[in-house]
């Protein structure tokens, strides 16, 4: 019984750390609705396989792959991120959702995590299963494309 309580506590702590970046990554990768389901599926998988997941070197990256597998259940060829109509909140360039959705998956997730949410390149790299420098390069290439498509010529 003590072991179970400890498992619950450890898992709850783990979810507290991983849930938000995982949700951002999967929502940006597959859209908010699919991202929600994929995140829930990945966390459920982690709970079921907790003995295995809890000792992994990179559980975040593994669960991102689990989420990706789950997302294929809802697979759509094109990722659609919801538009923001002029005048609605948040105030963003109307073309931003389109430009963001057209980025390759790795670039889109890296851009959202690193430039949109302020996660470190190492944390983003862990989720994506790539090195810190590769994650940073994905983010840089994605930001360059966004700036180009949105007509932003200088660094933000």
């Amino acid at each position, binding site marked *: 019984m003590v072991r179970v309580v400890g498992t619950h506590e450890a898992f709850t702590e783990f979810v507290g750390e991983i849930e938000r970046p995982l949700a951002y990554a999967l*929502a940006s990768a597959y859209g*908010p*609705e699919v991202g*929600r389901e994929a995140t829930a599926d990945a966390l459920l998988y982690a*709970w079921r396989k907790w003995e295995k997941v809890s000792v992994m070197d990179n559980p975040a990256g593994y669960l991102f792959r689990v989420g990706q597998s789950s997302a294929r259940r809802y697979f759509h060829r094109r990722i659609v991120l919801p538009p*923001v109509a002029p005048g609605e909140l948040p105030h963003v360039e*109307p073309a931003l959702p389109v430009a963001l959705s057209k980025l390759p998956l790795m670039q889109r997730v890296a851009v959202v995590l690193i430039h*949109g*949410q302020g996660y470190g390149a190492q944390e983003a790299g862990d989720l994506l299963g790539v090195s810190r420098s590769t994650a940073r390069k994905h983010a840089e290439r994605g930001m360059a494309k966004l700036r180009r498509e949105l007509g932003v010529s200088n660094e933000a």
Partner: protein
Amino acid sequence: MRPDLEAQLRDYTDHIVERVNLDTFSTANHLPAVDPPSTARGVLVAAISAMAVIVLATPLLLSGVDPDMPVVDSLPDVHTWEWIRVDGTIDTLPSGQIFAGDGRFMALEEPCLPNEPSDCRPSQFWWSSPDGRAWTREPIDSELVDYELHPIDTGARTWIAGFRNDGSGSSALFRPVQEGWSQVDIGHQRFGHLPVIASKQDTVVVAFWSASGPKLAVSDDGGATFQSSRAPWFTTYFDVVANVDGFVAYVVDGLRQVDTWTSEDGWAWEQVETTAFVFSDPAHEVEVSGRPGGYMAVVSAGSETSYWRSRDALDWSRADISGGSIELTEFGLLRVATDPWTIREPFPWRFEFSTDGEDWHPLAIPPNTAITDDPARDAWSHADGRIFVTVDTWSGERIIWTGRFTDGG
């Protein structure tokens, strides 16, 4: 344009993640109240869940489709699918997605292969082949410095749109000219995103989002010269196709509905007066493809996607299609699906083809083909009217599989 792109990204991603509603799957609310599945109850829950997974993974077939309204109007009366393997090297076969148009196979060189470092640079070369076997590599334009290029297939003609990677924000559109490509001037130097193009005989309509809103560029000489004007609609998401009477534009309005506009010549447009919106589902984006005789529309709203079909691009009926990714080709529908619970490659992809959206014919997977987790990168496309092509890419070696229906019965 707000200059603070990172702040916009933060606000926007906060906005979309709000929809995820993290509280709905907090550990207290979401996880089953069982121990990790080392207990009998855990095993039971896991078993029940596994059964649910099997049900969810079972391909969902069509139902309720009007048999009198085929998506496309022709398919050779053949049933056997055969694969042809073409071996080569990085120097003799293309690495990028293969597509077809203007009577040939084409591929834009893609040096940035999956799992390679992300600092590889886009290529300005393209490949062409008359038969999918022998390929030649040529520069798109020797004057270009560094472009990222995207093919746009209008059914009758293939175009290439590109963004210059020199920080200027400039863009270009290319049209096929004999064995090469010619850059065309549509009167604007910046696209907000890739344009949509429809062509009919010598009239070409290019619709695109610019910094000042949606624009149209129309050519009466096959795309050699364009004149541009402001589009009569003002939204980000739109698509344009040609039909027997001219051109039809589909525009997602502020109410998430799709308005229809028609034009005989591409210049003068008028909104179709309807008592109901053309598609009944809320839409974030609409994509229409096809040709006179059969059209398919994909209406997306978040994770919800509905499929519609029409003979004239104006009157639409809903097609109850589910499961996998659906792509409209000249001869029918291609469905790509996989077992969603396979984590590691190779994924068990399943390919099916249908001429009417009702009966689906499984297509065998090429032997010993490792398909990655992104079928879009693996280039399933229609070519030469009735041939599908996939590219299997590995370091130093290139293998192209061409699949087609034969008369073998």
